[in-house]
C-alpha cells in the first residue's frame, strides 16, 4: 500500500514456509544482528530507510511468521503489500517446493501475473546440510519470472542486496517508462513480448504443477 503523499514508502511482505528464517533475515536487515535466541525487542512491523540508486526509500516490512496455515489472513497481508520476498531454506527441500504455492497464492489474490517477487534461499552458511543447489533455485526463479539470490542471515551475506534489489524490482514494475526513456514504438514491442513470455511461463508452471502433482 503506497502512501497518498510520499511515493518512497514501499510495503514489502516476507513469506515462506515455517522455520526457514524469515524473521532472522528481517531482523538482520533492520537491526544488523542475528537472532540466536529470542530477543525481547522483536516487533511484527519493521520500518527502515535505505538508499537505493541515489534515492531514499522507507521500507515497511511485514513478517508473516506463524501464518503457515492461515491462508485467509495471509491474503490480507498480500493485498496490503507491493513487493514480496519468498524465502526458502537451502537445507530443506520441502520449503523449496512450497515456493510455487506461495507465488500462486500471490498471483491469485492480486489477480495479476506481473507481481514484483524476489526469491531467496537462506541458511547458506549450513552448506554441509544443503539439499537445494544454487542452480535449482536459479532455474525455478527464471521459470516463474522472479529474481533469485542466496543469503545467510547469520553471516549477513547478501542481506542488504536482497532488499535493495527488491526495491529496484518494485520501482521497475511501477514505472517501466521512467527506466526506459525511448520511443513509443520501441516501448510497445517489449510489452507485447513480455506478455507472451508470461503466457509461456504460465504454461510451463502448469506443466511443472502437473508433474509435481
Amino acid at each position, binding site marked *: *500500500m503506497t*502512501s*497518498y*503523499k510520499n511515493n518512497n*514508502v514501499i*510495503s514489502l511482505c516476507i513469506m515462506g514456509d515455517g522455520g526457514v528464517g524469515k524473521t532472522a533475515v528481517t531482523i538482520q536487515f533492520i537491526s544488523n544482528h542475528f537472532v540466536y*535466541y*529470542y*530477543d*525481547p*525487542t*522483536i*516487533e*511484527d*512491523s519493521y*520500518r527502515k530507510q535505505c538508499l537505493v540508486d541515489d534515492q531514499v526509500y522507507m521500507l*515497511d516490512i*511485514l*513478517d508473516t*511468521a*506463524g*501464518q503457515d*496455515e*492461515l*491462508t*485467509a*489472513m495471509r*491474503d*490480507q*497481508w498480500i*493485498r*496490503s503489500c507491493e513487493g514480496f520476498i519468498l524465502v526458502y531454506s537451502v537445507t530443506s527441500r520441502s520449503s523449496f517446493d512450497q515456493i510455487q504455492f506461495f507465488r500462486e497464492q500471490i498471483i491469485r489474490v492480486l489477480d495479476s501475473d506481473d507481481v514484483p517477487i524476489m526469491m531467496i534461499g537462506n541458511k547458506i552458511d549450513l552448506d554441509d546440510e544443503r539439499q537445494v543447489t544454487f542452480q535449482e533455485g536459479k532455474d525455478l526463479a527464471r521459470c516463474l519470472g522472479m529474481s533469485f539470490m542466496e543469503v545467510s542471515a547469520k553471516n549477513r551475506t547478501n542481506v542488504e542486496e536482497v532488499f535493495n534489489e527488491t526495491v529496484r524490482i518494485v520501482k521497475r514494475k511501477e514505472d517501466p517508462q521512467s527506466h526506459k526513456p525511448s520511443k513509443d514504438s520501441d516501448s510497445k514491442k517489449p510489452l507485447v513480448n513480455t506478455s507472451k513470455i508470461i503466457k509461456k511461463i504460465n504454461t510451463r508452471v*502448469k506443466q511443472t*504443477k*502437473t508433474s509435481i*502433482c
Partner: protein
Amino acid sequence: MIFLFKTSNKYFYLLGVGGSCFLGFVFLYFLKKSYNNKNNKFIESDNNNKNNFEKEEKEMSQQLIEIRKKINDYSKLKYPTKQGILFKKSRYLKEWRNRFFVIEEDILYYFDIEKGNNSNKPIGTPLGIFNLLNCSFTLITNEKRSPLVFKIQEENGTNKDYKNCLISCESAEEFNQWFQLLPQIKQTMDRKKDLVIKLQALSRKKLQQKKYQQLKESALTIQRFYHLYEGERKLARFIFNVIKVQSYARCFIDRMRYKKIKEEIMVIQSHFQVIKAKNRLEKEFMRRRIAQELLSTEKSYVYNLKLIIDIFIRPLINFNSIEQRVLSVSEISGVFGNWERLYKINSDLLVLIQCKLDNWSIDQTIGDLFIENTDSLFEYTPYVTNYDHSRKLLAKLTSGNTNFRNFLDAAQRDKRSKYLDISSFLIQPIQRLPRYELLLRDLLKSTSTLHKDHKYLSKGIVKIKEITMYVNDQQKERENLSQVIQIQKELIMDNIKLSFSSATRLIREGEIKVSKKKTWNYMYLFNSQLVIIQKKDDKKLVKEVIQLEQLGIRDDNSSSSNTITNDSGTDLLNNSSNNLLLLSSTISSPDLSSSGTNAINTSSQALPIGTIGNKFKLIISSKTEISLYFDTPEEKNNWFADIAITLNRLETQKKNFEKSINLQTIN
C-alpha cells in the same frame, strides 16, 4: 747230633716249640689217667684198631685231598717249627720205616724220604697229616723195639672216628724235644687269636676313622661349597629382598594410581553433573526469557492499541462542531472496527501475564492462563473480517477527504507513533494472533516434560490454534460471500430466474464453448448450480442455468465410460460407486466430504479421466445433452473433476438429510 748241627737255627726253634708241646701232652696224659680208668682205655683201643684204621683212612683221604690240593711239595712249607726223621710203624706191613716229620704251626706232616745217597730230603706230597690240637698222645710199653713208643690219636668228638699212628724215637731227649712244643704251639695259637682280634679291632677302628674322615671331608667339601657359593647365596637373598621391595613398591604405586584414577573419575562425574545442572539452568533461563518476551511483546502491543485510540479514534470522535468533524461515526467504525474492544481484551490479558511474571519461579505455570482466559480472543473475528473493507475505505478516504489527509499527517508526526503508518498499526491485530502460537510453542520446547506447565502449554497451543483457525475460516466465508455478491451484481438476467442463497459458494469459473464453431462463452460453477453466460459489449447475459441436483456428466473420450446421474436409483448407485472408487483411489481419502473440500482447496489436482480430447457432455435429461469444449485437456480435466466432486458432495448431503429426517421421525 749231626742233624742238629746242620740246622742249628731250625732245631733251636723246633726244640722250643717241641718242649712246650711235650709238656702240654704230658700234662694232659696225667690228667686223663687220674680221671679215667687206665684199663678201660687200653681195652677199647685194642678192640677197635681195625675200625679205627678204616675210618682213619677215610678221614685221611679227605684231609689229604684237601691239603694236597694246597701243598704239593715240601717246598711249599715255609715256616716249619720243627722237622726231622722219625721211625713210623706201617699200617698194613707192620714194619718200622724212616719218615721225615715236619711241624708247622698246629699241623704235623710226614713225608717219604729219598733212598739212595742218605740225603734225608722229603719227597712228594705228605703221606699223613695230623691236627695236633685235636690229637692225644699215649705212651705204649708193649712194643719190642724200644720203650719209647707212643701213639698219636686224633679225636673228632666221638670215640669211634679217629686215626692214629705209632711213632718211635732213638732217645728220650729227642722225644722230649719233639713233644714239648705242644703247649708252645697252643700258646702261639692263642697269641695269634688275640692278635687277630686286635687286628680286627684295629681294622674296625680304621674303618671308623675312615668313615669319620670321609664324613669330615664331605663336611669340609660342603663347607667349602657353602663358602664358595656364599656370594651367590647373598646375591639370591639380595634379589629376594629386592623383589620383595619391588612388590611393595608396585603395590604402593598401584594404590596411588588407583587413587589418581578414582580422583579423575570423580572429576569427570562432577563435570557431568555440572553439565547436567548447566543444561537444566540454561533451559530454565530460556524458559524465563521467552516468558519475558511474551510479556514485553504483549506490553508493546497493548501500548500500540492504546496509541491508536489516543491519536486517531478519540480525536476523531471528540470533534465538537459538525463543521470540524473529519469522519462520520460509520466511517470511523468502518476503518477501525471493534478496536476498543480488542484493547480491553488484551489489556486484561496483559494484567494476567504481568501477574504471572511478577511471581515468577521455577515451578510457575503460564499455559493454564491461555487455557482459561483466551476465549475472549474469538472477538478478533469481526476485526479480521472487516480488515479488507477497512483497507479499501482508508484508501478511499485518504484520496478524497482533504481534512482526513491533514489529520493523518499531523498524527504521523507524533513521536509516539515511531513513524509507522496507520496501515502498519491496523494490521497488527492480525499479526498478533498467530504470534501467540509461536511463543507458546517455543516456551513448550524450553519446558521439560516433567514440569507441570508442559501439559498446560500443550493444551494452550491447541486452544490458540483453534481460535486462529476459526478466525481464518470466518475470513474465508466472508470472502466467498463477497465474491458471490459481486458476481450476482454483474450478471444480467432477462427471462431466466437466478437465485443465490447465503450458502452459495463459487468453486470454479472459466471460458468454455458450447460447440466447436461458436464463440467462447463463460461458465460459473457454484456449489449448487452451473451457470453459462454470454459476453456482449462488456455485459454478461445469463444464457442457461443448470441445477446440479439433476445433472450428469459423461466423458466419451476416456477408455472407461463414467456416467453419473441422479434420475434412476440403480444407475446412480452403480455409477456413484464407480466414481467413489475413482475418487478414493486418486485422492486417497476415506472421508468424502473432507476429500471434497480438499479437492476444492487444491483445485490443481486432476483426476486421471482420459487425457485425450478437450470436451465432455452434460446430461440434463434423458433427451437433452450439452457438449462443453475447453481450451486445453488439462482444463477439461480440472472442470470435470470439480463438477464430479460437487455432485458427489450434494449426494452425500442428501443422504445425510434423509438420515436426519428418519431419526426425527423415529424420535
